[in-house]
């Protein structure tokens, strides 16, 4: 019991050293959170006719891209939490999801139904993820 009490507040050898979360990391997490909701919203709108009325739009590629945005959106929310809590995988997962998010936006643009909000969200997310402070926060932790 005594030893358990004495260990409170003492960094354990197996625990990584935790530093303060920087403002840039918090901001990145918030941006990812917004992007996640944008993706879910955008995807949800594309899936709405199918979900509510069982109606398949003429161009099923729109539905596929909407579904992709919807799924990626939820994953971006998870990545946002990972970044906020500074999990080593947070940055890598967020960056990887941006490939899908940006590709989705570009594909919609090429199909003639551009979703500029989605595209803007992807670009802003990449810019904030590329901040040196954010990259270093995760690379130092093995991310």
């Amino acid at each position, binding site marked *: 019991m005594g030893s358990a009490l004495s260990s409170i507040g003492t960094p354990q050898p197996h625990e990584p050293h935790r530093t303060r979360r920087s403002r840039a990391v918090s901001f990145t997490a918030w941006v990812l959170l917004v992007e996640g909701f944008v993706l879910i919203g955008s995807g949800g709108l594309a899936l709405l006719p199918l979900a509510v009325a069982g109606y398949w739009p003429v161009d099923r590629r729109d539905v596929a891209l909407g579904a992709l945005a919807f799924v990626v959106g939820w994953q971006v929310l998870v990545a946002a939490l990972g970044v906020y809590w500074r999990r080593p995988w947070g940055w*890598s997962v967020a*960056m*990887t999801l*941006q*490939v899908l998010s*940006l*590709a989705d*936006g*570009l594909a919609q*643009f090429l199909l003639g139904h*551009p979703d*500029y909000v989605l*595209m*803007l969200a*992807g*670009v802003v997310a*990449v*810019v904030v993820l*590329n901040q*040196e402070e954010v*990259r*270093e926060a995760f*690379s*130092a932790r093995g991310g």
Partner: protein
Amino acid sequence: VRAVDDARAAAPPHAADRELLRRYEPILRYTRGEEFFPSDVEWYLAQCSLWECDAVGRRELLVEEGQVTPAVLAQPRRAELGAVHYLVFSDPLDLPEMTAFVLREGVARLRAPEEGFRPSVGRLARVGYLSRLIDALFSFSLLLRGRVPGDTAAAAVLLNRTRHEGDQPHPYYGRVVREQGWVALQYWFLYPFNNWRSSFFGMNDHEADWEMLVVYLHEQPEGDLAPAWVAYASHDYQGDDVRRAWDDRQELERVGDHPVVYVGVGSHAAYYRPGEYLTEIEVPYLARLSRPVKTLHAFWVRLLRQSGAEPPRDEPEPFRVPFVDYARGDGASIGPGQARTWAPVLLEPVPSWVSQYRGLWGYYARDPAAGEDAPAGPMYNRDGSVRASWYDPAGWAGLDKVPPPPRELAILDEHMATLAVQQQELETRIVARTDELRAWGVELAALRGNAHLAARQLEVEQRVRTLSADLDTLRKEVAQGEVVLEALARRKRRIESPAARAADELDERRLHIRRRAQPATAAELRWSRWAELWAAVSVGVLLVSVVLLLVAAREFLFVGLLALLATFVFLDAVFRRGVGRLVRTVTNGLAVVTSLILIHAFFWQLAVLGIVAAGVYVLWDNLRELHR
């Protein structure tokens, strides 16, 4: 001792040079599978015929095989403009001879696999896609360019084996050059053939291979000679990069006074450390393309700051073909204390076969890239000009700017004294200029407020500005001179204090090296067989897939090409353990494209937004200042 000294004094002058050469002669360590070792000129020439090739490619036999001797080689010969004299060492094998050779070699490898050469990780597995594609083009170009026929290497191997060279010492051709306080001991080696391409997956084959290394000595105050540097010739390395300090045991391996050289199998390039070296050879004509690619890379890394948190590393040049030079040192060794020994031959006075024959020492393939043409002798380049390593051995290794250690202090003192005088002169000029400036300043103060002297005031103001700028330049020079003098004084203290010198001498002796040949690390060699297989087949499979796509599914050409490329790049990244880097690059690339689309679609809105944002920021900043 006196008797020995007397004997030395009585000996001809070249005997002392021979003794010097013998004292520092190198130990050459070869890789298993090496067929060609340093040979004597007489034997080599006895196997050769002498030819002339004129400017349009007509070949004429000048001296038949068996009749070429050093004296015959040195005979003066007329040559028309564009004509090249060259030797032919081995005649290509016919089909039955070649078949018998291949079978015999195959059986020998099966019987004693440990004695032969085994390649490790393929060179293509160590580099990226672009280099692999360039390599494929380079290999294809061999069909169009002049090259040494494939069976010539086999013929050369057979001919070389008739020499029974294991029984006799190997010759090196030594030369002692005294230049700028340095005594350069040059060791030249003649290899009958360079079979790097045909036997070891290298860049080129050519008959005859003259290789060289130099040991640099300097005279000590007591009159003895002491070694200070060595330089090994190795591919396109030159200047400071080929030179290593004699007492830098981390960079230079020695056995007593004998430097150890690790010789590339087939290429005979010299290395300081055993290992496998990724050597990149620039492809002529493609070099000019590398500048825009590098600019793009610099934009990506510096301006967009996309290098990430990874440590900086040397990226392979984009338009260079990679080759692996195997210098493992696990084969035969030649040198003092080794199974094979040296037989020195002094090139003093310079023999006529060295100075009079400017032609090539082997087959002239008429290769525009020159890699398959034999080299000229030790004294000349292929174009007949004198080699820099021959007329300026110190300058060849970047030693022309380095004084021999005992002279450095005197040179330093002299330079410091010169700088001190210059400083004094500058100070004097500063005083004079200051007086002048003040005089004009006084006049300017007097002129102000006198409207009728406005023209004079303008003139004086201009003069004051000029003088002020001059004075600023002079003061800057003085400040710079003081810093330089401080640095020189520090160096002087270091030279005068052996303790301080010992502390950082080794590091300092490596500072001159900009580009160092480094053997592959254990991590780089830890590639799986699958990765090697992928690297070997990827470019070929990609090209075939593109053709199939064109033939079978032309309507999906764009999407198909994208999918193909993406799949291949992803697989390559998986094998090269670079998926993370690939993801970052693709993400940033997509973000750039998306940004451009957004800018194009909302240009005016973004412009207005930018101006409004700037205005709000300025407003907020100014109001914040007021609030304080």
